[in-house]
């Protein structure tokens, strides 16, 4: 959902999912992306990144190569638009977005192997028996700030990117849950969880989109111990995956 005060069409996060059935394995992919507010056409870029991940565009090839293909799609969609001077200037800087994606490989085995990738501050949390057993790529609320290195649609800005790609591989058991969250919500979870472990149950209690909307509104108004709001006013995106 969008930042409070913004319209629905100003939401610049994105999410996607896909199922790919192979001979012995079924791949379930989930991705969230977060377009940076100081860049233009970031919503389109976030959508391209999230769908690119779920369509396997990030598999088995160097990251820069996958990104440059998606950049060309982004540029093509915006080509020929008659834009005022400031929009042209912004367009030439490129759009920026964070991404976090995870692929579960289901086989006949009793466990599920997964691989995850993240660039920027969107996060994935692994939950077992209501406890957070892994946080990726951030594990503390102190790590969030408003200057992350993000993926740009303009290759000239992606020089430092390779040092900021985080990957994670592991094994999940039936009953585990994975929570994918863009930065404001991820930071909220790490803050709340430090104070009270039962916050995970609260998230499980959200049964519908209306529940989620109500919960976000309340947390944006809730004052934390340091005097700020528990949930920073920003676009929020949340995917909850439960392995059965």
């Amino acid at each position, binding site marked *: 959902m969008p930042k409070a*005060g913004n319209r629905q069409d*100003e939401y610049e996060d994105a999410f996607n999912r896909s199922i790919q059935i192979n001979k012995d394995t079924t791949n379930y992919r989930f991705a969230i992306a*977060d377009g*940076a*507010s*100081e*860049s*233009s*056409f*970031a*919503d*389109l870029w976030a959508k391209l990144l999230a769908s690119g991940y779920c369509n396997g565009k990030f598999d088995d090839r160097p990251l820069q190569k996958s990104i440059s293909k998606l950049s060309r799609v982004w540029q093509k969609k915006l080509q020929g638009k008659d834009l*005022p*001077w*400031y*929009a*042209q*200037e*912004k367009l*030439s*800087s490129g759009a*920026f977005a964070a991404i976090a994606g995870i692929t579960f490989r289901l086989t006949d085995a009793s466990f599920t192997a997964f691989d995850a990738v993240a660039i920027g501050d969107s996060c994935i949390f692994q939950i077992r028996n209501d406890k957070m057993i892994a946080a990726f790529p951030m594990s503390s609320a102190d790590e969030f700030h*408003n*200057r*992350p*290195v*993000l993926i*740009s649609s*303009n*290759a*000239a*800005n*992606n*020089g*430092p*990117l390779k040092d900021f790609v985080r990957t994670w591989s592991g094994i999940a058991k039936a009953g585990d849950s994975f929570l994918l969250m863009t*930065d404001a919500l991820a930071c909220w979870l790490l803050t709340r969880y430090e104070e009270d472990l039962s916050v995970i149950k609260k998230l499980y209690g959200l049964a519908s989109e209306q529940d989620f909307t109500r919960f976000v509104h309340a947390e944006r108004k809730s004052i934390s111990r340091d005097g*700020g709001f528990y949930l920073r*006013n*920003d676009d929020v995106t949340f995917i909850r995956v439960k392995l059965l």
Partner: protein
Amino acid sequence: MYSAEISRSNPSCFLFIIDQSGSMSDPYGAGSKAESVSDAINRLLQNLIIKCAKSEGIRDYYHVGVIGYGASVGPAFGGVLAGKELVPISEIADNPSRLEKRLKKVPDGAGGLADQLVKFPVWFEPVSNGGTPMCQAVNTAHTILNQWINEYTPSFPPVVIHITDGESTDGDPTSEMAKLRELATDDGNVLLFNLHISDSPSAVEQRFPETSDGLPDPYSRMLYEGSSLLTPFMIRVANQEHDLDLSDGARGFVLNADLTLVIQALDIGTRPANLR
């Protein structure tokens, strides 16, 4: 303090005060002081607008005004903006007096730089005429901002950027500047930043000094004393993004240098670390 969210429903304000007096025709660098002022104000406006530009247009995060002082004191925009004290930033974005084509160096993605033709908006041409009624100009800013603050009391406080060679002809503006800095919203006092253009032979470029010790003349020292302290967030951005080494006492004062940093250092959301 200085933490209010800047949004369209809770905008902030930028007021520029520019010296257009006769002394600005003095030579400075390759041109005149007046050229340096017009270049600085055009560049600051351009940066502020780009910061507010989104796919669909400009978001009105700021109300912006420019007061000129010289032969007269008052709103300095021309064309459709003439006579307006403060306008939403989108109106300024859509009404430059002309667009110049300039070559800009941009990274080519392979570690080098390439030339790119860009449109550079121009709102102000060099002007130098009359005396330097600095006290009156700062008083005018006070009146305008007092009114704005009454309407937008919870907002991030107004930022005032004053560009001058410092040679006031209607008295010492120290107390007027102090009065201006005393104005406050719920989120903090007005921030007054001074950009001093000096042709003094001993003027060495300075950015956000913590003391007036190295300043060349009384004009510089007066402007330094009249400047607000940078906010902690601005100091963090200056140190992290501009390789400066500022501490808590850094003032919003520059001598013969660029002030664009204070615009980049305003928080309106995620700014990618790899965007320069």
